[in-house]
């Protein structure tokens, strides 16, 4: 890093360079710089949705990949998500005004009997960072809470978390109830938590097990894209 390169004036960068710089700034969790970058792109006439997908979501994808690959860890990801949030706060009202398509929505909660929430909170933050709307039900949720939230918010995705071997079987109770009520196929069900694995996810009838928050975001994107391709409207 040479001296003359220390000061970057964001407004002097062309669009492509600015987006690249925003990727780095997201990576470094620089909230003010991200807010500045978002405003510059908007002033240059970028549509809010383009700012969201190309600059912010693009940058968070790099953060997510490096988190998945064990290059970044939770503190850095939280900082990045916080910077993303700063950008989102500017974009949110504009996105609503312009009727931009939604990335998707998720209802998430830790299952009944389980009081752990750090992993779930991380997934919420990363999903928001990827542009999803997230309804967080908190900890210790009986099946009724999930069903009510699905009814009320009509999300694309239901996420369930458990940290205990004694509580993870409850995920099956929720999925079985959804099957009984004939609503299972209306939602993508993603499950996660330290003691889970892919085999377990399959055994209980979830769409996928997500090893960590980064995988959850990637999996959510894939399923929502598939859903859109099938012409199922979610807006």
């Amino acid at each position, binding site marked *: *890093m040479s001296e003359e*390169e*220390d*000061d*970057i004036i964001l407004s002097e960068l062309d669009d492509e360079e600015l987006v*690249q*710089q925003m990727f*780095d*700034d997201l*990576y*470094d969790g*620089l909230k003010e710089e991200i807010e500045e970058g978002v405003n510059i792109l908007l002033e240059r006439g970028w549509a809010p949705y383009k700012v969201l997908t190309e600059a912010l979501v693009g940058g968070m994808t*790099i953060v997510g990949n*490096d988190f998945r*690959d*064990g*290059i*970044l*860890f*939770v*503190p*850095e990801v*939280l*900082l990045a998500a*916080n910077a993303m949030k700063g950008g989102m706060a500017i974009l949110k009202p504009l996105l609503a005004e312009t009727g931009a398509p939604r990335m998707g929505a998720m209802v998430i909660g830790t299952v*009944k*009997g*389980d*009081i*752990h*929430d*750090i992993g779930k*909170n991380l997934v919420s933050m990363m999903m928001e960072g990827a542009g999803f709307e997230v309804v967080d039900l908190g*900890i*210790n949720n009986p099946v009724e809470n999930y069903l009510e939230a699905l009814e009320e918010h009509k999300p694309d995705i239901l996420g369930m978390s458990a940290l*205990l*071997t*004694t*509580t*993870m*079987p409850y995920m*099956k109770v929720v999925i079985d109830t959804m099957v009984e009520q004939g609503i299972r196929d209306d939602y993508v069900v993603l499950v996660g938590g*330290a*003691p889970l*694995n892919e*085999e*377990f996810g399959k*055994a209980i009838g979830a769409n996928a097990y997500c090893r*960590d928050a980064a995988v959850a975001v990637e999996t959510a994107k894939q399923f929502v894209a598939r859903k859109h391709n099938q012409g199922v409207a979610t807006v």
Partner: protein
Amino acid sequence: MTNALSRLLETRDWLMADGATGTNLFNMGLSSGDAPELWNTEHPDRIRTLYKSAVDAGSDIFLTNSFGGNASRLKLHDAQHRARELSRISAELGREVADASGRVVVVAGSVGPTGEIFAPMGPLTHEVAVEIFHEQAEGLKEGGADVLWLETISAPEEYRAAAEAFALAGMPWCGTMSFDTAGRTMMGVTSADMVDMVEALPNPPVAFGANCGVGASDLLRTVLGFAAQGTERPIIAKGNAGIPKYHDGHIHYDGTPELMAEYAVMARDCGATIIGGCCGTMPEHLEKMHEALSTRPRGPRPTLDEIAEKLGGFSSAADGTGEDDGPKRQRRGRRRG
């Protein structure tokens, strides 16, 4: 220092700690979602039974039923005002069992994480964390704990806050972190980082190490990482009994007593002085571990390949230490310095 643990460490070259608390209590009828600490007053007989099962299996050290006994965790059960009381009673019950054992058994006052993320990203400030840990430490001290035992920590900030609180309580302590993410803690701490952090504390622990995490193999790789730093401080290894598996609606840990015996001997060869189990480690595992540690000779420090061969593969290729410290991102790296 004149505490029971330091005295034992002067005369013995290995000590056995205990196994699982949660797994054992669930087997005794604890419902998931309930706070195990409430059993200290509701079912003191069962807590004594838990402690005694570890002592009978040969443990030199057992941890009190106070892992979630801090105000931050108890708040989830609307019992935040009982942190000091429940911690004290967990240690009093431990004192009874240890003193009745007829030998020196260390009562280690368990202190688990607050479950909160530190400021600025989360709500927990250093001052509040110290206060929370101090309250619990005073309770455990009143109840007669020989040492305090911090465990399953991910954030260095939290480890430091607990150390400060233990100094306020004037208690000797041990502290382990949980290395469950590509060989690091969830917050990215490597085994080498932890040694540096521990040695920089004004009141370093009597012993430090790793607990819980992914499986026995990963845990031993972490112990090797500690030892590679050339630390003189006793190392603690408290690994899970394998990895949880789901079969026909039930969960069980796949680590057999024989595998845990192998793990215990290898942990000692890796450089650990205090060896125990964590989740899934039952009295029958402890018995086999104790037998192996008592009867089998020490061997050379095992290689990673030997660990993988005997205990199973690792969860990640690298653990962030040594020359192969994992991939790095190519940065543009021109930000204002």
